[in-house]
């Protein structure tokens, strides 16, 4: 692991360094809400997934959804974090129409998950470890609808009470690239764990980004919080803009006011939402309707034992077992679906140890390349893992050459079908019959006596002969056989 070097910003008075911390809100994957039995399904008619508890009717009481607790613990384990066997739900009190209780049930002083860390890989093989301060469970509020009437606002409580995990990072992030990579990695881990679908467009994963600037290594500056970023690309822009804004203010002799800001993607700038003075006094206190959340170490151990393999472990295994390059392994594990596709290919290979690395190349170069070109993702791939494995098998066992395999891949992509049967039916098999190849070799040597003479002094010119033989065999001659034959015939 190499230590990351991060980007500094050149100001008028010298270099500046960003200090970034993040609060990620990740919607917990669960059938029902954190404290009620109402469905969490997305996209229902407004107010069709609302229980009496969600609507905060008089006398209603919250009951913790154990699945959400399991998901939070799983996530904590996936972040290599300390799991707190006792945690407490608190009320965060504020008035807003989308918050029926007049308070959000959250965890303030005693979160369910404590400190952990995330290994974040950057370009060029660099990496950085970002500390996780804590993870806690809390309720999502409802949604205000302002576009239904000119004079009234409506509220949809379907989302109200859905479980969120708030994952708070330490201020370990130093530039926009790291910030983006951190969110990408965290999202990947959550998706591997199945604890959050990571759908940022639906707002199921969103980040509040705290940005401050300082002289490299110097004392911390005053931070501003950019709220509700639900696009990784915009997050990068917002951070860059915000850091430059702060530097300008400081270099002009001003001071940064601690405040909450929002990012306007159209203008590409951050704008003030509210200052520190306008900040709420949330009057946190332990929710007396809920007992402290307690479970035993055995509960944690059980979840740990059933945890799926996570991207870091998977990457290490791919490197160790199949000799993949760290870069290729990273590409494969970045998305859960890609890794699953590759694993399925591996499972179908006739000789995994021999062809595992080749399979990775095929997945990354041919398949991903083609998918990217057509703007499709792995789940919509016309070539299945079985088909790709069959193609790799055919190469590995010497039935077809790599060049023919590319043609075969194209046929399978366009028309589908069983690759092995296609090779048979269309005569794409590599020729390994010595006598047939020998005749071609003899003919070519005979036709090019001067080149044959040259090659005895310059063995690297052998390639020309190989090319000629392959060409006249329509690419079907086994290159290894051709190579061996030429060497013996030419006496090198």
């Amino acid at each position: 692991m190499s230590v990351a070097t991060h980007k500094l910003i050149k100001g008028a008075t010298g270099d500046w360094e960003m200090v970034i911390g993040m609060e990620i809100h990740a919607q917990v994957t669960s059938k029902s809400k954190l404290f009620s039995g109402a469905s969490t399904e997305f996209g229902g008619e407004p107010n069709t997934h609302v229980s009496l508890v969600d609507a905060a009717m008089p006398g209603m009481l919250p009951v913790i959804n154990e699945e959400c607790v399991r998901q939070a613990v799983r996530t904590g384990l996936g972040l290599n974090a300390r799991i707190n066997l006792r945690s407490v739900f608190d009320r965060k009190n504020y008035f807003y129409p989308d918050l029926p209780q007049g308070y959000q049930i959250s965890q303030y002083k005693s979160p369910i998950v404590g400190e952990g860390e995330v290994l974040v890989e950057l370009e060029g093989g660099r990496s950085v470890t970002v500390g996780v301060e804590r993870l806690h469970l809390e309720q999502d509020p409802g949604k205000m609808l302002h576009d239904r009437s000119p004079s009234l606002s409506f509220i949809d409580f379907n989302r109200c009470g859905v479980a969120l995990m708030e994952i708070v990072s330490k201020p370990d992030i130093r530039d926009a690239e790291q910030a983006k990579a951190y969110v990408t990695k965290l999202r990947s881990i959550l998706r591997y764990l199945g604890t959050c679908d990571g759908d940022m467009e639906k707002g199921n994963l969103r980040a509040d980004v705290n940005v401050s600037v300082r002289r490299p290594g110097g004392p911390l500056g005053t931070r501003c919080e950019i709220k509700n970023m639900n696009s990784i690309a915009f997050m990068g822009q917002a951070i860059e803009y915000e850091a430059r804004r702060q530097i300008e203010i400081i270099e002009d002799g001003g001071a940064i006011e601690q405040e909450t800001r929002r990012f306007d993607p159209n203008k590409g700038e951050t704008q003030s939402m509210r200052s520190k003075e306008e900040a709420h006094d949330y009057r946190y206190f332990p929710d007396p309707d809920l007992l402290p959340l307690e479970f035993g170490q055995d509960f944690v151990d059980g979840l740990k034992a059933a945890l799926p393999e996570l991207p870091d472990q998977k990457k290490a295994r791919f490197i160790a077992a199949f000799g993949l390059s760290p870069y290729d392994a990273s590409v494969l594990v970045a998305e859960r679906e890609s890794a699953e596709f590759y694993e399925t290919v591996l499972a179908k290979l006739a000789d995994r140890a021999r062809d595992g690395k080749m399979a990775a190349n095929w997945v990354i170069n041919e398949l991903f390349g083609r998918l990217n070109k057509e703007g499709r993702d792995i789940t919509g791939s016309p070539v299945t893992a079985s088909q790709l494995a069959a193609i790799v098998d055919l190469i590995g066992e010497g039935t077809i050459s790599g060049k023919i395999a590319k043609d075969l891949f194209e046929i399978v992509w366009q028309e589908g079908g069983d690759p092995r049967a296609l090779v048979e039916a269309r005569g794409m098999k590599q020729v390994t019959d010595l006598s047939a190849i020998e005749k071609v070799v003899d003919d070519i040597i005979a036709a090019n006596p001067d080149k044959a003479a040259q090659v005895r002094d310059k063995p690297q010119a052998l390639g020309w002969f190989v090319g000629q033989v392959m060409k006249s065999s329509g690419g079907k001659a086994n290159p290894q056989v051709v190579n061996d034959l030429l060497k013996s015939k030419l006496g090198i």
Partner: protein
Amino acid sequence: MTDLTSLTLAEARKGLAQKSFTSLELTDAHLSAIEAARVLNAFVLETPEQARAMARAADGKIASGEGGPLAGIPLGIKDLFATRGVRTTACSKILGNFVPTYESTVTSQLWRDGAVMLGKLNNDEFAMGSSNETSCFGPVGNPWRREGSNATLVPGGSSGGSASAVAALLCMGATATDTGGSIRQPAAFTATVGIKPTYGRCSRWGIVAFASSLDQAGPIARSVRDAAMLLRSMAGHDPKDTTSVDIAVPDYEAAIGRSVKGMKIGIPREYRLDGMPAEIEKLWSEGAAWLEAAGAELVEVSLPHTKYALPAYYIVAPAEASSNLARYDGVRYGLREQGRNIIEMYENTRAEGFGAEVKRRVMIGTYVLSAGYYDAYYLRAQKVRTLIKKDFEDCFAKGVNAILTPATPSAAFGIGEKGGADPVEMYLNDIFTVTVNMAGLPGIAVPAGKDAQGLPLGLQLIGRPFDEETLFSLGEVIEEAAGRFTPVRWW
């Protein structure tokens, strides 16, 4: 046939079983009594049609031998309990004409066991008060008056409607709730029996919340036995309330008449207040003597943090209330007073919807939870609470079975007599009862005598966690010795 309203619940159960009368007759007798007693303002909503329908259904079940433990027994329900299809307001304007689509767990268990609902009973607004004077429906009259006086007295609070209705023979029993004494103090003021069970014994689901960590439902009844019968139906674990406890509910009635011989009764020295009326002092000694005569052993005990209980209570309860009442914002149900923007709508709605005492407590609660004050008030009060709890634990660890105290520092007082200038004057009513809520223990108030003006006085017994049975056994000893007290009808 004697007046059916004068029967105890136990007697009525027998009469119904023997077909001496029907539930419909029993229910009609009470409905007539309610109509004749409207001056007491005990009921804020009468539900005669529903009552008769439930009575007829109960009669059918009794006839076919399927009647539950409370089959055909007409009850009053404190307006803090959500009743499906029946207006539930917590006696606050802010709930307006709120009609729940759901039934509280406690009342649904009563209906399951065959009880009949006569209507909804008055209480202090959101159960905040000790005199039932803060209700948006106006004060409740106590059926008891001072000898030679026509002045209407308060029935205590917050369950003033429940206590008044039971004492005036308007219902055979009533549901009530107790956050700092709201069952026991009105019971003591009206010569009825009221028990606040252990915190977690009854489900809070469907009961309008005041202070969640202190609120507990219980019955007010005409006798100790009646209270035992009612509590058995009301109590029980409810998965919808995670603070309710999964412990089997015993047959409380079986504890009535059980020997108290050899039981150790603690007499806490800290409950002997300076300037306590001699009558209260005398009553307390009498009660102790009755228990001793029944074979119990009296021991002086110390509960050293008692004096901090009331101030700590008036931090914890308002803190929780300020948050619990945030949902009454005019957005989804109840009263809405329009404004030019959302903040103004909140302000107008809450200013118009809440009464003065509720506003006071919401403000106190907001203050003690706010940044910079939390540690000094809320956190400190919670520490005091832990110490109060430990006082009791230490006492029970020494073998004490129950603690005997006065229920209230005085008898009932006149409407408008207390708390006008200084709310603390009213808060002092709960001086003997709040400790029990702070510690989550069961406490029962039993009528024990009268003061010089002929007003009833009660004694309180405090028990070990989930040992309501001992309280019923001891309570019945006091009841037997003191006799029953019935007000002279003036309404």
